[in-house]
């Protein structure tokens, strides 16, 4: 029997590229935000403080795995693998539900 059906080299290369690049980008954003106050700078563009830039970097890190699931969803659907497209959609839906619940309970936890 042939068992080699799960390998998807094209998808694996694409995901590796996105995760690698994304990690560096998010890391650099956070580093920039942390370094700005050291030089007494007031911020860049929309972000007015180093702290806001750091928050943007953190948000980018959180979005990176979500982006990875989206890419998998697109690849599955393009290959006509609708069952796995549905599974990827379910994962995305759970993450969005979590964020929505987080917004509703904002300001909840002490320390």
């Amino acid at each position, binding site marked *: 029997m042939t*068992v*080699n059906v799960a390998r998807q080299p094209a998808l694996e290369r694409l*995901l590796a590229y996105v995760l690698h690049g994304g990690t560096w980008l998010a890391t650099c954003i*956070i580093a920039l935000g942390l370094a700005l106050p050291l030089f007494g700078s007031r911020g860049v563009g929309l972000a007015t403080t180093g702290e806001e830039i750091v928050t943007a970097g953190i948000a980018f890190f959180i979005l990176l795995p979500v982006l990875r699931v989206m890419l998998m969803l697109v690849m599955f659907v393009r290959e006509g693998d609708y069952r796995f497209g549905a599974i990827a959609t379910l994962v995305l839906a759970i993450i969005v539900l979590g964020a929505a619940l987080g917004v509703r309970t904002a300001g909840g936890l002490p320390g």
Partner: protein
Amino acid sequence: MNFGFGAWLFAISVGASALGGALGMASGIFIVPILIMFGGVGIHVAVAASLVSVIACSCASSAAFLRNGLTNTRVAIVLETATTLGALTGVLLAGVFPVSLLFLLFAVVLLLSAQQMMARRREPVAALDEAGAKSWATALRLHSSYPDRVLGREVPYLVRRVPLGLALMYGAGLISALLGIGSGVLKIPAMDTALRLPIKVSSATSNFMIGVTAAASAAAYFARGDIDPTIAGPVALGSVVGAVLGARLLMVVSGEKLRMLFVVVLVALAAQMLLSAFGVHLGGHAS
């Protein structure tokens, strides 16, 4: 932003992540107790900050595993339905769980990790007999193969007992969201015992999944405003730097010595967490 405290956070994250990375563990298991005990940070803030660094480490190391063809992305996405659901449950429970119980749970996870570190992982019996035609893994086409450098060929493997794997992964996601860790403690038995994946595939796939699992809970904590950038920022940055260093460290230091150091640190942190659970504080900052 207090520069001194930020620099301290960065430094301990580099250390925790370098040590953790060298033995294939996420740094959260060290960072959360250290932040609480020595940084005077509240457990919920420490957990949320640690989750960001867990995502960072997962993304940073996933790329190499993917390029080497070790990650089973189909198994990952199937199990992620369970880990993210578990993470969601964990986020909801974090609000109602008494803090002393969180400390206790953390101590248990630390001790279990120490025990796993002592017992070497053995390659699961990779019998290539026929998986049941009706099994979930066959229906979902999860069976695959990985390139083995030593053997110089593709090694095929079958995936077993997906429902049991899903159940364990739900637990792993829950623990991850509650304690801010990658939760290898539950993922490794799930991968080895239930799914019977080869160790290399299991490490790569588990690492790949940790990012999405942590993202599910971190997104909720972020939306809730629980992520403090002055803490999460330096911790995430330090973790990425540490992860890069950890890979190098592994080549210089003997694995056996590192393993023993790990066990000692884990047990010491567990003892401290147990004391905290019962309201005894030895550290300077704790209040």
